C-alpha cells in the first residue's frame, strides 16, 4: 500500500510534466495543425537557460523568468522562420521541419552551454514530506501545483477572454476567423509563444528533480506526444488526463515490473492509441475539423 502510494506520487509528478508538454503540443496543433516535435526542446531550454543564468549570478526566480521569456521568443522565431514560410506544405513536411528545428536547438544548446548534467536547488528544500507512509518531495508539489495553475489559467483564458475565444475560433475554422477580423497570423505567434513558455516552465519546475542536459528534450517530446495522443490531440483536457495517465503508467511499470520497461510505456501507448482509438480519450471525430 505504501509502495503504491509512493508510485502514485512519482507518477503524478512526471505526469504533470508530460501534461504540460502535451498541452504545448495541443496549443500549436490547434492553431496550425502542426505537430511540433521541438516541444521537448522548450522544456530543455527552460531548464538549461535557468541553470546558466543562475550560475551567472541572477537570483533563481529571475533566472527562471528570463528562461521562460527567452524560450517563448525562440518559439515565436520557430514559427516565423520555419513554420510560416512552409504554409501550404504537406503536414508531414512541416512535421519534419519541426524535427529539424529540434536537432538545431539541441546542437546550438550543446555548443553555447555544454553536455553536462545540471541542476539548481529545489525551490523549497529537499526534505521529503511524509504522507501516509510514503514520501513526497516539496519540489513535486511545485511541479503538480504549477501544472494545475497553468491548466486553470489556460481554461480561464479560453473560456473568459475574447482573445482566448479567437484562438479557439482560429483552431476551429481559420478562414471564418479571418472573416470576423481575427488576425490568424498573430494568433499563430501567440500560440507558439505560449506553448514554448509553458514548456520552459515545465523545465524550470522539474529540473531540481530530474536534472537537465542538452538532450533531455527528445524523450520529453515523445512522451508528451504520447500523452497528447492518449488524451486526444487538440484537447487541453485530454492533455491533462493523458499526461497524468502516462506518468502513472510509467511509475507503476517501473515499480511493479522493472524500470527497464519504463520508457517502453510511451511507445506502447502510442501504438495502442493508434490501433484502438485513434481519436484518443477526449478526441473529436476528424470530420468535425474543417
Amino acid at each position, binding site marked *: 500500500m505504501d509502495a503504491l502510494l509512493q508510485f502514485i506520487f512519482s507518477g503524478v509528478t512526471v505526469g504533470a510534466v508530460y501534461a504540460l508538454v502535451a498541452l504545448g503540443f495541443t496549443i500549436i496543433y490547434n492553431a496550425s495543425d502542426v505537430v511540433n516535435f521541438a516541444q521537448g526542446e522548450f522544456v530543455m531550454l527552460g531548464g538549461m537557460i535557468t541553470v546558466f543564468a543562475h550560475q551567472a549570478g541572477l537570483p533563481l526566480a529571475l533566472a527562471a523568468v528570463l528562461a521562460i521569456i527567452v524560450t517563448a521568443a525562440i518559439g515565436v522565431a520557430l514559427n516565423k522562420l520555419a513554420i510560416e514560410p512552409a504554409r501550404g506544405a504537406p503536414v508531414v513536411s512541416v512535421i519534419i521541419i519541426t524535427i529539424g528545428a529540434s536537432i538545431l536547438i539541441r546542437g546550438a544548446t550543446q555548443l553555447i552551454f555544454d553536455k553536462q548534467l545540471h541542476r539548481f536547488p529545489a525551490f523549497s528544500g529537499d526534505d521529503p514530506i511524509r504522507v501516509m507512509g510514503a514520501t513526497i518531495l516539496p519540489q513535486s508539489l511545485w511541479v503538480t501545483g504549477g501544472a494545475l495553475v497553468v491548466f486553470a489559467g489556460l481554461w480561464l483564458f479560453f473560456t473568459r477572454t475574447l482573445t482566448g475565444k479567437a484562438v*479557439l*475560433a482560429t483552431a476551429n475554422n481559420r*478562414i*471564418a*476567423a479571418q472573416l470576423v477580423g481575427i488576425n490568424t497570423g498573430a494568433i499563430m505567434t501567440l500560440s507558439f509563444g505560449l506553448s514554448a513558455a509553458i514548456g520552459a516552465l515545465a523545465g524550470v519546475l522539474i529540473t531540481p528533480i530530474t536534472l537537465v542536459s542538452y538532450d533531455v528534450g527528445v524523450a520529453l517530446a515523445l512522451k508528451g506526444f504520447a500523452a497528447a495522443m492518449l488524451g486526444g490531440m487538440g484537447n487541453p483536457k485530454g492533455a491533462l488526463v493523458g499526461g497524468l495517465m502516462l506518468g502513472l503508467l510509467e511509475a507503476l511499470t517501473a515499480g511493479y515490473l522493472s524500470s527497464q520497461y519504463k520508457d517502453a510505456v510511451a511507445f506502447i501507448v502510442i501504438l495502442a492509441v493508434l490501433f484502438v482509438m485513434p481519436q484518443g480519450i477526449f478526441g473529436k471525430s476528424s470530420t468535425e475539423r474543417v
Partner: protein
Amino acid sequence: MLTVEGLRSRYGRIEVLHGIDLEVKSGEIVTVVGANGAGKTTLLKCLSGTQPVSDGRIVFRGESLNSVPAHRRLAHGLAQSPEGRQIFTNLTVEENLRLGAYLHSDERVDRDMTEAFALFPILREKRNLAAGGLSGGQQQMLAIARALMGRPSCLLLDEPSMGLAPLLVAQIFEVVTELKNRDVTVLLVEQNAYGALRIADRGYVMETGHIIISGPAAELIADPRIREAYLGL
C-alpha cells in the same frame, strides 16, 4: 460603394474569373446569379480577401482593397457570410455571435446581439448550444447574424438558400430585404436565380468566369434568354 474592375483569379494555373466588372451602389441589393461552377464563390472570396486576385481592382468606399489582408476587410465595412456557412462548429451560438463582433468591445455589442436574436428568434433559444449541432437553416441564420455583428456597411452573401426548405428560403430572403432598412448594402450570390432577382434591385448573370448580362432585376426576370436558361420558365 463597391467597384470591381477587370477582376481575374485562378486556382493554380487554371483561371476561373476572366475579368469581372461589377458595381454595387450604396443601399442596393445586387445579385450575381449563375450556374454551378460559374465562379460566383470565387468572386466573393476575392472580395473578402480569402482568394488571391491575379489582376484587376477592387475599390470599396473609395479605397483599393487589393492589398488589404482578409482579416482587415471587415474593419473597412465589408463582411461575408461564406458558402457552406463556415460557422465555428465547436463554439456555442452565442460565442459565434460574440466573435462576429470581434473588432468591437463597446455596449453596442449587447444591443446588436439582442437585434440578431430578434431577427432570428430560434438562435436565442439555442444560444448556449454548440453551433455544429444546429440544422442547416439555423446554421445559415447564424452565419448571416454573425456577419451582421461585425457592423458591415456591405454584406456579401454566398448562396444563403442552398439546401434549405422553401419556407426557410423565404424567411432568409425576407431578412435580406429587411437589411435595406438597416443601411446594409447587399451583394447576394445565388443559384436560385428567381428568388434572388425578385428581391434584388439589380442583377448580374455569370457564366464560366464572365459576366454575360446585367441590368435591373425586373428586366432580367423578363428577359427571355434568362427565363429560359436560369429561371426554367
